[in-house]
């Protein structure tokens, strides 16, 4: 490890050796889904463009989106976005002073995971 100029204490960020609490997994998932949405936005904008360009491109988009790969992608994007949004709402709730304790953080993270899982199942039912 290369020490920085201000701080020469050793740092262990080898995540494989650290037992992480559920709040850490919630935070990491929020980041991962956020980065995913940055890339997914390209596909969403492409779809918006195709859907509005002309009636032919609209129909072509509908045809493309009915393929198994497109459905899987749509399900993934919808599920990632829903998780990211739920975790974001949890932040807003905590900003309002609700659930700021260690216990509250754990409960909040669990609620977000369960709700996101239920949403992912619902998206699956809606798409297939």
């Amino acid at each position, binding site marked *: *490890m*290369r020490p*920085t*100029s*201000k701080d020469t204490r050793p*740092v262990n*960020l080898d995540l494989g050796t650290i037992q992480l609490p559920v709040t850490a997994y919630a935070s990491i998932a929020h*980041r991962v889904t*956020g*980065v995913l*949405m*940055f890339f997914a*936005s*390209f596909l969403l*904008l492409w779809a*918006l*463009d195709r*859907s*509005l360009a002309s*009636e032919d491109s*609209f*129909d072509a988009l509908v045809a493309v989106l009915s393929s198994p790969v497109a459905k899987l992608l749509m399900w993934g994007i919808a599920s990632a*976005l829903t998780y990211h*949004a739920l975790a*974001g*709402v949890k*932040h*807003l709730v905590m*900003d309002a002073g609700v659930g700021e304790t260690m216990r509250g953080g754990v409960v909040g993270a669990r609620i977000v995971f369960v709700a996101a899982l239920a949403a992912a199942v619902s998206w699956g039912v*809606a798409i297939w």
Partner: protein
Amino acid sequence: MGGSDMVTSVTSFSRTGLSDWLIQRVTSIILLAYFLLIAYQLMGSVDYTSWTKLFEQTWMKVFTLMAALSLAAHSWIGLWSVFTDYLTERMLGPKGNTIRLVCQLAASLALVGYVIWVVVIVWS
């Protein structure tokens, strides 16, 4: 302030953590409202006529542009937070800062591109 810290703050969205924090929340609410509206529309039966009619209305064009600007700011702040945590000299060695700046620049350019793309889609 060391050189590395300066580079970190100069690439943040609004230069201060407090306003980045507030912008992140305001943009999140705009994006949430926009995606809820889109999801609600897609739940019903969508055809080309009703879909284009929705996007022809001025309020929807303005809302779409607001969502695009929010997406750009929100992603910039979010990616900056991720980049400054993981793409660092401590994590990646001497090239860490360079790698981070390149990634930040690429992401920022992509986000500007997204906004321009939305303007072209909605206003043409």
